């Protein structure tokens, strides 16, 4: 070996040693979430994405918030009440500051809601969230700490839509311009944005002047960790690996087949919450064979949902007899579920004159192929000879949304983040509504849904939905399936956060134990 080569060899060895030694500059008081998708924007008014909302909601607070059990509670306001069928009044908390240091006033609330609901109010564009606020017509400043929301018509679901709208500062937005909100943030939430490394991570730190959040969910006060970081890890196996390697403390969308691995590791626990999506197979009631209610009931009797939930969904789903998730407003037990009874199914098929069987196709997207195939096998056993056709979502959805229904069965789902029937029951089962895939139409159901939409007495309103749900269960325009649970894994060192039915990860109260 010549002398010249020695320094270069030494340099290589040093480089290698440097690489193998793990660097750990991150602090122990930082809470890291391994999350599936990056935010599309940080502008609370300029997106329609649940994952974006989840991230933004740690920086921005809303007029109202939602507890893990689904209850809607005042957040930035001390009180929120309805003063007539179309008017709500909110009195603001006095001590709320934006991250920029400016106090929040009624003008900011008005500015926020005008930006969401008025045409072209967002730097010349109209907010894609406009339709989420339904008939909200105007936001009126009564005094510096009081605002009124004026609706065009009664809309009882209004308070439930408020936790997903975040308040921005009028002065700040005017100063930086609407476009800047895509990448900068100035909220009233428990964390302040430090840096957004797009596609990689969103880094936030505790906001020292935080007013403390709603006192209704104790403990109120500033965030309990120094920093909160959302690390974007789209691949399931890598997200689980990051948790097991101690790189993150919370992960979302744990794949069912990896639950065991996480539990055995002894480092983290699994936490589940009922999701907001109801899964069903829409049966095309406008043509044979599913225009016959007996065939639809036969299909419902043919499927062993318990077996499917246990074997295919790892037990992480709740069977539903109708449309509404058990967490939803208006859900009441007592709707009779079609029990698994192939004999009864065959009998119903014979009554419908189909003892020789019938050929049908189940349409679905790739992600649900296994479930569709298992269901097809069960249906085939009772004479509904089903085959599965897998489509891409962007192509399949319009086929089933069209008013002219040509296909047989559609394994699909519908979600309502606000957990209110108006967001799921009305669109999927009211005559000709936007998501009515089965082509179902029942005058009584339509009447009840319309009445309930404007009914201000919650008990009466819940009753109306329950009556409608009974009719739907009886007429079976769907093969009723389940509400899958959202599955998270949480490090054993973390306390103060449990998943709720709104799929949000609010880290305000999360902290470490020693």
């Amino acid at each position, binding site marked *: 070996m010549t002398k010249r080569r020695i320094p270069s060899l030494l340099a290589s060895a040093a480089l290698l040693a*440097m*690489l*193998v030694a*793990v*660097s*750990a*500059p*991150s*602090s122990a008081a*930082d809470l*890291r979430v391994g999350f599936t998708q*990056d935010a*599309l*924007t940080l*502008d609370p008014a*300029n*997106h*329609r994405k649940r994952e974006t909302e989840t991230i933004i909601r740690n920086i921005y607070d809303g007029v109202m918030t939602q507890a893990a059990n689904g209850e809607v509670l005042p957040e930035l306001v001390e009180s929120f009440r309805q003063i007539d069928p179309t008017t709500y009044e909110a009195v603001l908390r006095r001590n709320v500051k934006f991250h920029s240091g400016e106090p929040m006033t009624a003008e900011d609330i008005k500015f926020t809601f005008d930006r969401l609901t008025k045409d072209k109010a967002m730097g010349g*564009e*109209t907010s*894609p969230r*406009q*339709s*989420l606020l*339904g008939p909200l017509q105007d936001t009126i400043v009564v005094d510096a700490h009081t605002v009124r929301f004026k609706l065009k018509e009664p809309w009882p679901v209004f308070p439930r839509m408020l936790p997903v709208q975040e308040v921005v500062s009028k002065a700040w937005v005017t100063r930086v311009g609407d*476009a800047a909100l*895509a990448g900068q943030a100035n909220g009233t939430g428990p964390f302040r944005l430090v*840096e957004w*490394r*797009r*596609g*990689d*991570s969103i*880094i936030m730190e505790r906001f020292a002047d935080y007013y403390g959040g709603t006192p209704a969910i104790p403990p109120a006060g500033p965030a309990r960790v120094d920093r909160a*970081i959302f*690390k*974007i*890890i*789209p*691949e399931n*196996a*890598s997200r689980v*690996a*990051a948790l*097991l*390697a*101690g*790189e993150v403390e919370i992960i979302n969308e744990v794949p069912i087949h990896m639950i065991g691995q996480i539990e055995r590791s002894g480092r983290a626990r699994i936490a589940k919450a009922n999701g907001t999506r109801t899964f069903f197979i829409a049966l095309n009631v406008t043509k044979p064979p599913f225009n016959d209610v007996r065939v639809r009931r036969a299909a419902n009797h043919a499927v062993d949902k318990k077996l499917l939930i246990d074997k295919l969904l790892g037990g992480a789903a709740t069977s539903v007899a109708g449309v509404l998730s058990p967490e939803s407003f208006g859900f009441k037990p007592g709707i009779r579920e079609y029990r698994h009874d192939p004999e009864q199914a065959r009998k119903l098929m014979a009554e419908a004159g189909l003892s020789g069987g019938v050929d049908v196709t189940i349409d679905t997207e790739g992600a649900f192929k296994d479930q569709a195939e298992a269901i097809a096998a069960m249906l085939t056993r009772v004479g509904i000879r089903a085959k599965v056709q897998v489509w*891409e*979502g*962007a*192509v399949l*959805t*319009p086929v089933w*949304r069209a008013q002219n229904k040509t296909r047989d069965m559609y394994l699909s789902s*519908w*979600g309502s983040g606000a957990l209110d029937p108006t967001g799921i029951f009305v*669109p999927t089962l009211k005559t000709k509504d*936007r*998501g009515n895939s089965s082509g179902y139409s029942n005058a009584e159901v339509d009447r009840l849904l319309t009445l309930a939409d404007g009914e201000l007495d919650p008990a009466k309103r819940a009753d109306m939905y329950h009556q409608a749900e009974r009719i739907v269960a009886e007429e079976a325009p769907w093969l009723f399936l389940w509400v899958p649970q959202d599955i998270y894994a949480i490090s054993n060192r973390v306390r103060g956060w449990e998943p709720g039915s709104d799929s949000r990860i609010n880290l305000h109260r999360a902290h470490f134990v020693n």
Partner: protein
Amino acid sequence: MRFGVVLERLAQLIPVLFGVCLVVFLMVTLTPGDPVEIMLGNERSTPEQAEELRRQMGLHLPPHERFFAFIGNAVTGDFGRSFFHRRPVIEVIAERLPATLELTIVAMTIALGLAIPLGILAALKRGSWLDRVATMVSLAGVSMPGFWFGIMLIMLFAVHLGWMPVSGRVDYALEVPRLTGMILFDSLAHGRFDTFRDALHHILMPALTLGLAMSALLMRVTRASMIEVLQQDYILFAEAKGIGRARLILRHGLRNALIPTVTVAALETGYLLGGNTIVETVFGWPGLARVIVEGIFSRDYPLVQAGVLVIALIYVGVNFVADLLYTLINPRVKL
């Protein structure tokens, strides 16, 4: 090499890029699925709101008008606004491209660093155990799916041994100086060695996953080409003249044998730029390929069009540089 020839070659790239634009435009336009419907999703909206959204996205215009508007704007560097990111596409690409370029450069360095020496050794010791091992390893490298190999690396080096980070480009607590967006380069330029070290640490596993698969192919090409060159008369003549072994192999043999390697390396660079979605996903690498695939599923036409165009631009650029390199490696080659 005459300057005029280079200019002529550059001019030939224009129809190629126009063709790419046309094909991509037709593909995204003809693919079924409506971006407006995807955007509105399941939420309540009136036909007027849908129409307004369609107008904002420019989708109310007939396809040929959209195409020429796209070309006309693209020439001035304006690629339109992303439907889903809701800001100029060029911003989205500018944020993601450096990560992809950085990963490509490191992966290619690993690939060439392994392939050329191993290819030469395998050619020199043809039929020996070394040759067989190299051939077997290369076969394994070519046949191993990237996502599987990547996850195996993660399980071994990140989860069990704890030596390597699972995902991302650099630790969130480290300051990242801004210059080109390529963290390795930027941190060195600013003398931030802690950031450089951490970024190197993060890039190693994804770059190895890509680089090993690539080196397998490159090694086989180098070996085959080297074997052919070593059988040429001029090598025999040089050997007879008594030239030292190292000089014989490197100057007379390798230089001539490298042309196919350079060609394949250039083609593979194109593959790395556009085709490493899987590796970017497995390692949470915020690159361009991942954002384009997300764009395809959400029918984000402007993003997909511009993203593919940028990749095509780099691809033809790299192949053009490869052509120039031939003339440097072997002056007898004329453009």
